[in-house]
């Protein structure tokens, strides 16, 4: 998505990305980024929290209007868990002794599926 933002901006359309994968977006280098420190999935606010969604979208519009140079990152004030439970950070894409074997097996299965897909001619040009 960062590459799309860069292309649109180059083509004359100002852009802002709303997202939660800060390192991926900032490494790619985008004009404007509104970062909410949430688990991936709800970049414009918690489900059914209309007020929060409105605030994040408004911040995006303000950033579009007011940023004066590229790589402008604005972080919204929202936290995922009111009790400060940060366990979602470690849980996502967890790799430890409890799942190493399962992951290795999943990798093998995936590669076999990819081989099969290639033989069937699937995939984009």
């Amino acid at each position, binding site marked *: 998505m960062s590459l799309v933002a860069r292309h649109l901006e180059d083509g004359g359309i100002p852009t802002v990305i709303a997202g939660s994968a800060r390192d991926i977006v900032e490494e790619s280098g985008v004009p404007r980024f509104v970062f909410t420190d949430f688990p*991936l999935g709800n970049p*414009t606010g918690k489900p059914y929290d209309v007020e929060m969604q*409105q605030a994040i979208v408004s911040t995006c519009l303000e950033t*579009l209007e007011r940023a004066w140079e590229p790589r402008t990152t604005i972080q919204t004030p929202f936290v995922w868990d009111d009790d400060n439970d940060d366990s979602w950070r470690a849980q996502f894409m967890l790799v430890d002794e409890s799942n190493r074997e399962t992951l290795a097996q999943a990798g093998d299965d995936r590669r076999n599926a990819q081989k099969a897909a290639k033989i069937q001619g699937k995939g984009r040009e």
Partner: protein
Amino acid sequence: MKDRRTHRSYVSYIDKSREYYGAQGYPQAYQWSYNCDVPFTVPAKPMSECRVGLVTTSFFDRSFDRDAVAGSTDKEPYAAKCDDALGGLYNKDLFWAKDTTHTEDLDSYLPINRLRELESRGVIGSLSKRFYGVPTDYSHRRTQKKDAPQILKWMIEDEVDVALLVPL
């Protein structure tokens, strides 16, 4: 709220995914996009006169799930009426925190209703009648040479002034 920490707070998805796929036996880490120069265009008019275009990584078609295999997507970029997305889009094949949250509320990842409210209050000129979908392709080349130019073409057709991009 703790005001001191020994580690950076936000998650590094570049680090996590490298370790995760390494554990799955992929010898070569994914090469993420990295750029020093960043383009920049200033909006030509006030937001209250701008038409806003929304870009998502979610799709309509639920059949992608069946054949979802990393690096071999059949997805193509698309443009569709915002009205047609109100029932929700499909994204279970994408990487997001499915154990922690859900995407049952469209506006948590594609804020069509929120932008329409802002349109009715005059904060933006309008929301483009169409929104735009782009595949999360592993290939930088396809995104840069094929998908992004197609999204730009549609936005110019729809007279979009500014774009809000919302990757899941």
